């Protein structure tokens, strides 16, 4: 059973691969019906699948593919011209074949799908168009109301008509003969020629049988030649598989094939690569191996860890460099670090490449789609594909399909006009849709260009107002691009009539969501009457990304660089408030702004400086300016999930570990844009806390003053002078300590006495550091110093001191100055 499963898996993988190519070939075939190569290729797919499925006892599938093969074979021999009608039937049967394969994959059996109708049509086409071709035996079978024999594993003889019974008997005889012949042939033929499957000769017309014999002889000759050539590489010759005779298919006339040819009848598809390979001396073995995606994912995770390690190493190296400047070992360390980082980067690229798939995998299904759509919509549409070899990450390939389908459908339905309209507009009758893919830096760009009627900004606006998506006021302020973006709003649909193709207003909304999920951007360009171009810009990979690190207060956040359009430094005056929202003018655009602190509830401890940095974020079709306190730089980060416990936090896409071992959160730009809509702007506002700093004082000890001086004596003098007031006194020996005490926030200080000359951090520096905090902006700082020069006083004022007491001083004087500055209430 296991063995069977294994074979089944191989069969499915192979079949799906074949089918993928098939759609493309078929559409091409329609434009070039005489291309024999193409026909042969298509025929071989049907043939291979038929052979394998009969071996695996999938009777329904075998039945269907058999008839497909018949039809294709006729076309191959010129007995049948492929026109649109024939094509429709072929495509229908291919779809059915796909459905069957999917069924087999999911449930392990191929029952439950109705193939007879399709088979009937296949045969009708085959019979109707080719007079010369002899009547196919299976065709009449289909007309019988109970065509059980073809579907059931064990044919139900009782339900058969006479003709069927006879056919069945003949089939059995044929099978028997074939079996015998195969046995004989195997005995005669000592070479390990492959009998991988028994081609179905029974269903063939005379002409086909002849052709088949010719083909087999050709194959045989080629094989002989190959054998001679490949004597050195004997081991590569394929092994003989047991002839799967019992699976020989449907009722039909007797096989008239010489037994000699039989053993040498491998599936044609298989014989070809072998010929090529062995003719070249057997040197080209298959150069690819299949790898489970999970293994690649694991590998990618490991690389992620390595990148983190590398970042950390670089950071440590920088620190070491600072500390041991000029030492000899530094040079060596530097070299090692740069080699490690270089190799890591290369390794990362190499692993990423193993996950890359050509975008052609996605593009392949579009020719067929366009063909179906143009018939359905009675339009003439041509699809041009450029750059289908462009590669991108597997996970993205999987996600990109749906959006593209919607966009292309949209272009066909709304973009391209009907031939009559096109002619009237002075364009060619045939509309073109161009599908382009190319790399641009770390992005892949997919462009969908149609030469249809284009988007009409005014029409879009009025439609949106009508549907209540936007207000008239909003519409007035909209640029053309913003109006184009309206098509992505949920509930928007410009089609006057809902067709089966599009117009339900769901599709384009899905496009936007999916592209946002990939951190991609959408750019629409359109001109009325000329056409529309939609540009999707998507990062190449998702696991390791480039990020812009920004700071707000004491926190850092990583923004995916893919979403960053630019950064600008602005002064506070450039921020305007319109309807309680902050905006700024960026060149000729008005950009709405939001402070990252408002989004992430960051406590405003520090004062906002005069300047701010604005990170302009673009995602899909929208833009927003994110105000941050500082820009740290660009770094390669590895996305880690926050885990089950914290998942789904709005605005956070994940976390990454930085070079210093700390965790930095990654901004989810799409969510952030949503959140920005509901956040009240507080740009330029002081936090309420700063205003309410001076709490209610109930006793003298509620007042708190810090004494900062490095001299124990001086501190004692100050303490003695102030003790009579009964206020709380806290001592610090230098600026650093003072700042730490402030930061801890254990006390609510009403004033500070600061010495100027101190180790580690002097009084001036301390004062300016303190003034950076919003909370302590109005904290009275009193300098107590022996420096009396005018310059010193000036510096004191500049750094934010409000009083300047020179040593020596009288206790009363100090007490009075303090009392005045902390607004001491004598009544307590």
């Amino acid at each position: 059973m296991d063995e069977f499963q294994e074979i089944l898996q191989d069969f499915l993988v192979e079949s799906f691969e074949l089918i993928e190519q098939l759609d493309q070939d078929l559409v091409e075939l329609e434009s070039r019906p005489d291309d024999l190569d193409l026909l042969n290729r298509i025929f071989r797919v049907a043939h291979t699948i038929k052979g394998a499925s009969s071996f695996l006892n999938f009777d329904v599938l075998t039945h269907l593919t058999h008839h497909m093969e018949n039809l294709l074979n006729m076309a191959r021999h010129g007995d049948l011209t492929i026109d649109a009608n024939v094509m429709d039937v072929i495509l229908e049967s291919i779809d059915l074949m796909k459905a069957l394969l999917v069924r087999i994959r999911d449930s392990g059996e191929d029952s439950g799908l109705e193939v007879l109708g399709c088979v009937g049509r296949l045969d009708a086409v085959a019979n109707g168009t080719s007079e010369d071709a002899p009547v196919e035996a299976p065709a009449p079978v289909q007309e019988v109301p109970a065509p059980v024999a073809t579907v059931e594993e064990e044919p139900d003889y009782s339900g058969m008509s006479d003709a069927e019974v006879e056919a069945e008997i003949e089939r059995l005889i044929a099978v028997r003969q074939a079996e015998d012949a195969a046995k004989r042939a195997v005995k005669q033929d000592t070479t390990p020629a492959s009998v991988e499957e028994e081609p179905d000769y029974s269903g063939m017309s005379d002409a086909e049988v002849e052709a088949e014999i010719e083909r087999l002889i050709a194959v045989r000759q080629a094989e002989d030649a190959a054998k001679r050539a490949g004597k050195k590489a004997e081991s590569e010759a394929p092994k003989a598989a047991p002839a799967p005779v019992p699976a020989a298919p449907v009722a039909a006339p007797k096989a008239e094939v010489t037994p000699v040819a039989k053993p040498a009848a491998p599936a044609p598809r298989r014989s070809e690569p072998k010929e090529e390979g062995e003719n070249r001396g057997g040197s080209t073995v298959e150069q690819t191996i299949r790898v489970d995606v999970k293994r690649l994912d694991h590998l990618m995770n490991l690389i992620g860890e390595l990148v983190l390690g590398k970042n950390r190493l670089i950071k440590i190296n920088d620190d070491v460099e600072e500390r041991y400047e000029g030492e000899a070992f530094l040079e060596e360390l530097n070299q090692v670090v740069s080699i490690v980082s270089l190799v890591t980067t290369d390794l990362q690229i190499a692993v990423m490449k193993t996950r890359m798939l050509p975008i052609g995998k996605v593009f392949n299904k579009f020719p067929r789609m366009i063909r179906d759509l143009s018939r359905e919509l009675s339009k003439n549409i041509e699809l041009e594909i450029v750059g289908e070899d462009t590669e991108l990450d597997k996970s993205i390939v999987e996600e990109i399909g749906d959006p593209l389908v919607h966009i292309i459908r949209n272009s066909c339905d709304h973009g391209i006009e009907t031939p009559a309209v096109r002619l009237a507009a002075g364009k060619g009758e045939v509309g073109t849709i161009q599908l382009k893919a190319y790399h641009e830096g770390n992005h892949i760009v997919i462009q969908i260009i149609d030469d249809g009627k284009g988007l009409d900004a005014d029409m879009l606006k009025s439609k949106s107002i009508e549907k209540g998506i936007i207000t008239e006021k909003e519409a007035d302020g909209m640029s053309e691009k913003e109006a184009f973006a309206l098509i992505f709003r949920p509930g928007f649909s410009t089609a006057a009539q809902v067709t089966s193709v599009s117009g339900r207003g769901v599709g384009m909304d899905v496009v936007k969501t999916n592209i946002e999920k990939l951190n991609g951007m959408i750019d629409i360009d359109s001109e009325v009457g000329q056409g529309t171009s939609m540009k999707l810009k998507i990062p190449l990979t998702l696991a390791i990304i480039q990020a812009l690190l920004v700071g707000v207060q004491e926190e850092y956040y990583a923004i995916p660089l893919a979403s960053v359009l630019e950064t600008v430094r602005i002064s506070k005056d450039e921020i305007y408030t319109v309807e309680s929202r902050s905006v700024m003018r960026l060149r000729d655009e008005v950009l709405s702004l939001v402070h990252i602190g408002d989004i992430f509830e960051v406590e405003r401890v520090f004062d906002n400086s005069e300047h701010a940095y604005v990170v302009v974020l673009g995602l899909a079709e929208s833009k927003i300016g994110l105000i941050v306190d500082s820009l740290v730089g660009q770094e390669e980060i590895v996305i880690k999930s926050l885990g089950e416990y914290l998942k789904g936090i709005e605005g956070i896409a994940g976390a990454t570990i930085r070079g210093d071992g700390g965790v930095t959160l990654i901004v989810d730009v799409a969510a952030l844009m949503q959140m920005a809509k509901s956040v009240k702007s507080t740009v330029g506002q002081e936090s309420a806390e700063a205003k309410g700093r001076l709490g209610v004082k109930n006793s003298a000890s509620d007042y708190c003053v810090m004494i900062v001086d490095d001299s124990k004596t001086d501190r004692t003098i100050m303490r003695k002078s102030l003790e009579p007031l009964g206020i709380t006194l806290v001592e610090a020996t230098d600026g650093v300590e003072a700042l730490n005490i402030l930061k801890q926030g254990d006390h609510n200080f009403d004033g500070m006495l600061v010495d100027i000359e101190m180790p580690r951090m002097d009084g001036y520096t301390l004062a300016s550091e303190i003034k950076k905090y919003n909370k302590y902006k109005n904290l009275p700082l009193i300098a107590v110093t022996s420096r009396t020069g005018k310059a010193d006083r000036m510096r004191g004022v500049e750094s934010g001191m409000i009083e300047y007491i020179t040593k020596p001083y009288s206790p009363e004087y100090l007490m009075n100055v303090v009392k005045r500055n902390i607004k001491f209430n004598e009544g307590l």
Partner: protein
Amino acid sequence: MSEKLQQIINKQQKNLSGEDTKIDEVIQLVGFIVGDEEFSVPILSIQEIIKPISWTRVPQTPAYILGVFNLRGSVIPLIDLRSRFGLPTLKHTEETRFIVMKNGDDVAGFVIDRLTEAIRLPKRDVGPAPETISESESLIDGVGKQADRIITILKVWKLLERNF
């Protein structure tokens, strides 16, 4: 299959599990203090205990979630048990520890005031949680009685369950 065979298998399994409970009669706990009370969790649910390290605040979370920290390359949530239990927060001291607990794939760090000891407790000394607390909401798995004190045993899976 015959019923008899099934019965025999059942009986064997019963015997086996019966033996298991005998072995399991002593449970091992790690005790720690949060506020004024001593709590404990089964020793096997503890991945490790570390000294406080720096963490990163995560926005849009309840106050008891301090944020996330980096435990050798993994990003792990950090939960303050004091505020989880509705107690006022304290500044971390020399004795503060992060207990990293796990339940299946769920892992989180918990800030506790200080560790006490590893406790071996016979299973019969463990009583049910006080009935006044509704069963589904309670974080308490049971109460362990020792000669001189009472130890609250916490439900680790409940602690690790997201409740916001």
